[in-house]
């Protein structure tokens, strides 16, 4: 597979456009009541980089994606998308909490695919694909439908445009959900355990679509998955989380073949034993 050499790209960020950090967590804190999930977490993801987040459940991976999608409130710290703070607005030279409009503007650059697809059951497949581009991006119906058909073809469901989500299998629904996220032309795609709710025989189809997107676009991806083979193939970098901290990170070959941290070793052991 012709994967660009991102190890060096990451190591030398700055300079080329692709080397710029696109996502930056700066001392991010997230608490749910008394439970601290993320404690002063800092990391960066470069434009075009595909990063897989691994770690035991409760380690904060999904929370990171949900904070980026503004589905959870930030407790402390800063999250940057490009040169804009996601949860804050500039006021003079200070950063103040963002209003709804700012949140909407910044998160337009981010798309998300969920574990349970979350398609809108009261709309057709095509409706799911075109509504947001029309309402949010201001596209014409023709333009949005054209793009919708293109995306359906890409995920292998061009004949399902007029079907309702409930008439599709889980795998098909998830492929539509991927198309729906892409229809918004995001710079960043968040994949939150997108195959966890699928029957085993449907997983390959969904991963195939994602591999194709990874191969043919330079969209930045943050991936939470238990599919280690997929993670190894598509990601430039793997981050191992435990208790809201990155305990180890590096290129997938390194993390999966020669992990250094004991917790990474134990986690990979447990995951691979399960199979």
């Amino acid at each position: 597979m012709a994967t660009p050499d991102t190890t060096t790209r990451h190591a030398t960020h700055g300079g080329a456009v692709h080397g710029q950090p696109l996502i930056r967590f700066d001392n991010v804190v997230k608490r749910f009541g008394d439970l601290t999930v993320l404690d002063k977490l800092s990391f960066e993801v470069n434009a075009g980089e595909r990063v897989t987040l691994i770690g035991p459940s409760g380690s904060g991976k999904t929370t990171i994606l949900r904070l980026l999608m503004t589905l959870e409130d930030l407790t402390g710290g800063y999250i940057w998308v490009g040169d804009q703070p996601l949860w804050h607005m500039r006021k003079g030279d200070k950063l103040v909490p963002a209003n709804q409009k700012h949140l909407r503007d910044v998160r337009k650059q981010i798309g998300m695919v969920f574990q349970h697809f979350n398609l809108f059951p009261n709309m057709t497949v095509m409706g799911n694909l075109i509504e947001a581009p029309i309402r949010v991006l201001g596209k014409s119906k023709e333009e949005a439908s054209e793009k919708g058909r293109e995306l359906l073809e890409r995920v292998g469901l061009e004949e399902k445009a007029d079907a309702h989500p409930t008439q599709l299998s889980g795998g098909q629904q998830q492929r539509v959900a991927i198309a729906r996220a892409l229809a918004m032309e995001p710079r960043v795609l968040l994949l939150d355990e997108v195959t966890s709710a699928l029957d085993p025989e449907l997983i390959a189809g969904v991963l195939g679509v994602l591999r194709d997107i990874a191969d043919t676009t330079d969209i930045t991806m943050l991936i939470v998955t238990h599919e280690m083979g997929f993670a190894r193939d598509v990601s430039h970098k793997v981050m191992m989380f435990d208790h809201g901290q990155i305990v180890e990170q590096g290129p997938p070959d390194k993390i999966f073949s020669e992990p250094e941290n004991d917790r990474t070793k134990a986690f990979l052991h447990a995951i691979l034993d399960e199979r």
Partner: protein
Amino acid sequence: MNWDMDYAIDIFPDILEAFVKYTLWVTFLSSILAAVVGLLFAIIRFLHVPVLSQVITGFVEFVRSTPIPVQLFFLFYVFPDYGILVGATTIGVLCLGLHYACYYAEVYRAGIEAVPKGQWEAATALSLPQRYTWQHIVLPQAVRIILPSLGNYVISMFKETPFLFVISVPEMVFVAKELGAQSFDYVEPLTIAGLIFLAASYPAAVALRRLEKHLGHA
């Protein structure tokens, strides 16, 4: 006890007219009022709008704990004291509409909460505006869930329209009673009124059960 067919045929048009002009019309207007106000109540409470939510909660509790005739009397005799002069029928519609709005609000709340959280999250992930999310994603799904309950409340509201006689709205039962008083013969007019109620609400209940089944299977 004799059934006088000629008398029955004679008064039937008057009773039917009262049914269509008042009973049905009041039910129709009150249902719309209840549907709209109930939705407003539900959304305000769902969004926890400060002050307004608490006021509505208090109002709902008050309305649900007092009988309709008391509420009717209250509006009928208190409104004029504040210079609000409206007809008895309008007061009837207001009273039934607001009364049922409180029940509708609960039904809407249950329906809105039955829409999975993932639907809101998907809408956020697509940056869809709040208003659009309510109108085109959440409410259409909620309505599907709650339509049968709303229908049941319309039927029960329909059967409570005779309470309006306490403020002299000439709805069907009021007219039947008046006719009885004129002829000293109550059997025919009240029987006719009862049969008209039955003829209207029974098919409605059956249709509703069908709808429920249809929505459940869809």
